[in-house]
Structures are given as C-alpha cells and as structure tokens.
C-alpha cells in the first residue's frame, strides 16, 4: 500500500527544468520524495534512470523513470486526474500550449542562457535576439490568452504558465547579474504582467529559491562560462 503511487523526483535546485516538474507536482497536490543530485558527481541511480542524457529532472513513478521536463509534465497530466489540468481539453488549445511551450524553451530560454554565458559581441547578438523573440511573444499574447492573464491562479494555471515561470521566474536575479532589464514592463507589458501575476501565486512563491542563492549561482555559471580555467 505504501509503495503504490510512489513518486520520486531527481533534481538540482537551480534547474529551470526541474522547477517545472516541482511546480506541476505541487499544483496537482501529488506527494513526492525529492533527491538532490550533485551534478559533478551524479548518482548511479540517475545514470541508470536516464542513460541517454544523464540529466535531471527524472521522475520515477512506481520504479519507472521518465526524463525530459515537458514529457514529464504531459505524463503527470495524463496520470493524475485530480487537481487542475495542465493541458486544456480542446485539441486546438492543446496545440497552442505545446507550440508556445516549445517557443519559450527553444527561442527564449536558450537565448537567455546564452546571454548569461557570453560577453562582448556574442552577448550583444544574443541580447538582440532575446528581445526580438520576447517582442514576438508580446504580440501574440492576446491570441494565447484572449481573456487576459489577470485571473490566472493556482486552480487554473497550466503547463504554459509553469514553463514561463521556469524560464523567467528569476528575472530579477538575471537583471542583477547582467545589469540590465530582461523583463521590462515598458517593452513587453503583457508578458511582464503575465509573469508577475504568476509570481504572486502562493505555490509559485514557495517554490522559487532565495534571490541571494540564485544570484550566487548565476554569477558562478557566468564566471565559469567566460573563464573556464579559473574555477
């Protein structure tokens, strides 16, 4: 009886990909055990559960592992019917969620990471592209949320909200480390207000790590990328 529905999440506290899974589990009220992985020193369990990528997050449900954050989110949604749905019922709306989740991931998060890890001309190019893509998202938000984003709460938030939080929930950390605004209410007011509405939700607030801890981590990532030998 105790082994039924045993859920374990292998994670790494600053990972945006792990954060997505944590949020999904919390929103749906699914009890789980958490295993913090030391990434330079991965556990043999992790390597066994995710031999292809050797990465976190990995969700283990009744002994069966699932890897890749969006794949895990869809699995959670299909397996636990209690709590809010992470994806809408309507196939077209589901397609829109999947499309924009992929956009947030491939176009925005990847470029934000590049901005953190580069300097000089390379960074300038990455910044330009990041803002170009943010602008694209801003222009399309009324298609995604025809009723606006002000009424999003713990009971109706979904996969796309989770992905946005994981990508930019720590925007103040980025701004402190980089020295410029990433989420500007003047440039992208609709994206900004969507994000800040989400960050007020209690379950989200609780899941975001401390600002100071994140700043140290992002500084370390940047330092490491720019001066690989000086660690």
């Amino acid at each position: 009886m105790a082994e039924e529905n045993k859920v374990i999440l292998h994670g790494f506290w600053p990972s945006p990909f792990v954060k997505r899974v944590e949020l999904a589990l919390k929103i749906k009220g699914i009890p789980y055990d958490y295993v913090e992985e030391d990434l330079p020193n991965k556990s043999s369990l992790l390597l066994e559960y995710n031999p292809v990528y050797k990465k976190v997050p990995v969700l283990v449900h009744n002994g069966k592992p699932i890897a890749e954050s969006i794949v895990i989110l869809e699995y959670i949604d299909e397996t636990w019917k209690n709590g809010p749905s992470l994806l809408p019922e309507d196939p077209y709306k589901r397609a829109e969620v999947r499309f924009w989740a992929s956009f947030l991931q491939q176009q925005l998060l990847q470029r934000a990471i590049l901005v953190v890890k580069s300097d000089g001309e390379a960074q300038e190019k990455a910044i330009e592209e990041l803002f170009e893509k943010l602008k694209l998202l801003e222009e399309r938000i009324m298609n995604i949320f025809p009723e606006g984003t002000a009424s999003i709460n713990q009971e109706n938030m979904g996969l796309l909200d989770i992905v946005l939080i994981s990508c930019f929930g720590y925007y103040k950390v980025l701004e402190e480390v980089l020295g410029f605004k990433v989420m500007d209410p003047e440039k992208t007011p609709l994206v900004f207000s969507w994000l800040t509405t989400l960050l007020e939700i209690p379950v989200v607030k609780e899941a975001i790590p401390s600002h100071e801890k994140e700043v140290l981590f992002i500084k370390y990532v940047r330092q490491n990328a720019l001066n690989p030998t000086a660690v």
Partner: protein
Amino acid sequence: MEEVTLLGFWPSPYSHRVIWALKLKGVKYEYIEEDLGNKSDMLLQYNPVYKKIPVLVHGGRPIAESFVILQYIEDTWPHTYPLLPKNAHERALARFWIKFGEDKGYIIFSAFFLVSEEKDLGDAGMKEVLEFLKILEEHALGDKKFFGGDKIGMVDIAYGWLSYFFKGMEEMRGVKLLEPSTLPRLHAWAENFKQVSVIKDNLPDYTKLLVHLKSVREKMTAQNPTSKK
C-alpha cells in the same frame, strides 16, 4: 466535416511526417505546395512566428511545428489508427524519443550540410551521427520491428527521414553509416518502414531528392565558408 489543408514542401521530411499521419488516420486533406524561395502570403499569415512549413490548417485554424501537428492529429482523430501507445509510461517514452531526435537534429544537419569537404568516417561530425544512430538502435528500437511495436506509430513517423531521406544524404556526402553490418536492427527497420503501403505510396522521387539535397548543401556551405574541414 471541417476542411483540412496542408502547406508543405515536396522534399521536406517534416512535411512528410504530416502526410503519413493524415493518411494513416484516413483524413482527407488538400495539399498546397509552397515555394520556399517565394513564400505565399497564406504561409506568412498562418505561421507568422517561424514562417515555415509544414502548417496544417483545420477549419481555418493553423497549427505549426510538425511534432505539435502530429499530436494535434492524434488528439483530433483518436478513433482511427492510434499513433501513440495507450499506456501512459509508454506514451512518455514515445515522446521522449521524438524529443531526442529533435534535440540531435543539429548534429545531423551540420555533419551533412555544413561541412564542405568529402570526409571519411573518421570525421568527428560523422562519429557523432553514428553514436546517435547506435543509441536509437539500442535504446529506442531494441528488438522490435518498429519503434511503435508491430505497427508503425508516431516515433516511426518522426524518424521516417532516416529510412529514406538519409540514404540521399549519405550518397551526397559519400558515406555509408546505416548498413546491415554496422546497425543491423536499425537498417532492418528502415527497410520495413519504407515497405508500409502508406509510406511507400508517399515518398518523393529519389533522383529529384538527391539533386535537391546537393543544392541545399552547396547553398549552406557557400554561406559558411569558415566551416570546419
């Protein structure tokens, strides 16, 4: 019955994924060939974010990105020919392998289209491609006939390029990676996949495809004169 239209491009494997899925499901659709050098207003209107094919239009509403389209087709026409397994864990595995292919796409693309000199199998890029194929064979396919089991499914469709288009890429580059001696199970899969009637009847002409692939490579390597040797 709402109208279904597919905006595609004849040599594109992504375009073919959608064709194969629609045909397997028995969904009638209108096909519109896009000239990618001269994109139609319709394409730009239906996919303003990426301006790419394939785009599926159903009842006037567009869906872009082939993996998103495949899942839309599965969600919309669930009662004929399931493309994904019933079991949630197996569905997660199917999605995982499709994502894996998408993630590693750049390895394939750069090894075949961005390197301007003929190289033997010692080339680092080709080594990575071979490694990717070995992982697929060992972990995704295993001893099954198809990725989907006894019948083809969404994973097979997603890797369909490997069964037919890849041969053209190999010939263009003068390499042989997918051979019965190096990848016996994956090679057998490729042969079996091409024989499935829906697939066999919906493949581009090989000679034309080869000409097209060569011209893509010429264009890409001309744009990247500093590509690695």
